[in-house]
């Protein structure tokens, strides 16, 4: 079953001056519980493609359907709600809310979605246990290492059981040990929660663990390899 259906999507910046084709006629789709990596050299359009899939940016042409909803047809306010209810984000520089504890960061999206407190607490503790941080429940981001912060960011992205998680260079700021731990956790959660993971990366370790590897060059898909 297709969760994401990308149809001939283009994204062109500065169309009136020197046009930069960041994404150039990409057609892709992703099924439920995929663990896919988008790779390619710098400037190949990885982050732009993730932003388009995540509804953070609008395609110049083409359509992106998420579970049958065409993102291009949504108004700005509808897009925010759509992101809240359907997409989890993991950013390169963690981007946790600095004034909240690990637990509060994880439950933040559930709180925006108005989950009952009991369910919210249960889900938060489950996820913190799954990422191995149940002893850092009350730690603030400034009291945690980069690897720990990124694990909390993954838990936050998964908390409300979105349709898929987009991770932009999730291991770029991590040392090899932290990166390996994070990848193991992501793969485990992908398997257990049946949530699609799509991440852009340069990191060979990430590519190695991915079940599907899509290579972009100059905004075009040059290969799409599915591994068994």
């Amino acid at each position, binding site marked *: 079953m297709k969760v994401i259906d990308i149809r001939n999507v283009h994204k062109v910046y500065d169309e009136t001056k020197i046009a930069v084709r960041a994404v150039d006629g990409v057609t892709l789709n992703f099924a439920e519980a995929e663990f896919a990596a988008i790779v390619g050299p710098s400037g190949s359009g990885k982050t732009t493609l993730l932003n388009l899939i995540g509804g953070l940016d609008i395609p110049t042409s083409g359509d992106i359907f998420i579970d049958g909803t065409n993102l291009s047809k949504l108004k700005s306010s509808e897009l925010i*709600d759509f992101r809240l209810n359907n997409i989890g984000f993991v950013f390169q520089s963690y*981007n946790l809310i600095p004034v909240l504890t690990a637990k509060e960061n994880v439950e933040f999206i559930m709180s925006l979605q108005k989950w009952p407190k009991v369910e919210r607490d249960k889900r938060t503790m489950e996820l913190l246990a799954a990422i191995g941080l149940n002893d850092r429940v009350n730690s603030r981001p400034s009291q945690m290492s980069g690897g720990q912060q990124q694990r909390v960011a993954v838990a936050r992205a998964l908390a409300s059981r979105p349709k898929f998680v987009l991770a932009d260079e999730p291991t770029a700021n991590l040392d090899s040990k932290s990166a390996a731990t994070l990848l193991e956790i992501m793969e485990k959660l992908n398997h257990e929660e049946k949530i699609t993971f799509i991440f852009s990366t340069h990191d060979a370790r990430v590519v190695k663990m991915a079940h599907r590897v899509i290579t972009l060059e100059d905004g075009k898909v040059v290969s799409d390899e599915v591994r068994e």
Partner: protein
Amino acid sequence: MHEVMIWSISWKNVWRNKIRSLVVIIAVTLGIICGVLLVAIMEGWTEQRLHDAIYNEVSHIQIHNADYLKNEEILLTVKDTSQMIRSIEQIPGLNGWVKRTRMIAMANTPWANTGIIIYGIDPEKEKKITEIYKKIVPGGGEYLNKQKSGNILIGDKTAELLKLKQYIVTQEVLDKLKAENIPDDIILILGKLKDTRFRSPKEFREALKSELNTKELNTYGNKILENALDYRIKNKVQITLSDISGNPVQGTFRVGGIYKTTNGGFDQAAVFVNSIELEDLYGGSTVLVHEIAVLLNDIENVDSVKEKLTGISTGNTISTWKELAPDAAMMNDYMIMYYFLFIGIVLFALAFGIINTMMMTILERTKELGMLMAIGMNRRRVFSMIMLETIFLTMVGAVAGMLSGWLIVEALGKSGIHFSSWGEGFEAIGFAARVYPVITPSFFLIIIVMVVFTAVVSSVWPARKALKLIPVEALRTE
């Protein structure tokens, strides 16, 4: 319940940059303290002026012959006095009433003269309506008694004008000053003025000025003036007025007492004698009633009582305290406007600091706001978060300011603030030189409403700035 998280984030965000937040909080605190103090002083003065106007000067209601108010002639007395008094006595919630003779006169002593309004009163009845009997100054004799004593009660200011308020440094005064820890060198200097009589405060102050330096004068001047003050009690005062035939007549009274209210203008004009003794002077067979003063239990009933008395009275004018003391009425009526004005000015100035701080906050947190919008925090919630942050920031300062202001007002409310340098000026327009600041709970309610309003208004610009952020661009900022 679900919005609790937004409240929590907003509150915690206030304390992210403690120094910057504290600067704003301290500014708001100081602003509110100033506002509270200023309003408490105004409120203290208003209450004092209202109380003194009613209980020393005009009561709640006064009745005069309608023509007397235009032309204060001796025969223009209150019409149908007995009927009026019967009607007054039937007023529900009546505290008391008095009738007075009221005449324009001239007072003379061997050293000076001044124009006065002489009231013929029943001293005992008057005690139920006015508090003049409580205002006798130390060393200023006593209130009038029932008997025909030939005494006159005059104001401190009248005493000064008639040169009955004198200053003399006797050995007894020097001993008293020594006992009050005035330094020996000052006592020695004051010895030069010993037994010299000064016939006005001005003369005595000038003499002191020539002997003492400014610092000594500022430190000990008031104490020396208080101790050296010598009212010439029992001194004769000659009163000249028109008798019932319109001919000038003269009578002599002895100063029995000197009173001092907070209204120098009233003290300068109003003197009191026993109504029967005044009748002996202007002649005729009965005590003339030019004025009936009525005191009610509840000031709120004044208008309805006026209406009732006006309905049954012909040829008389019924005046309320608002008409008789319009200055006090105006202050009382416009107090709420002063509240808004003072606090409004303070908050208007502070709003710029609050906006500046919140704008800096938004600029610093661009990436974080971009992330929040990316993961699904909608515009309403972003706006609420920034607005709440501004309200919290401002309210912390406001609460600290209100609490500190209240404590200061409580402390000053006991001792009062003495505006000694401007005392004479204040008293000339009916305000006490010593004011007892008071603050009412309703004022704090007004502050809270105005602070929240200021915070909401101040948050609009920074919040709009935040709402204009495009998440994908905001996320790229460092």
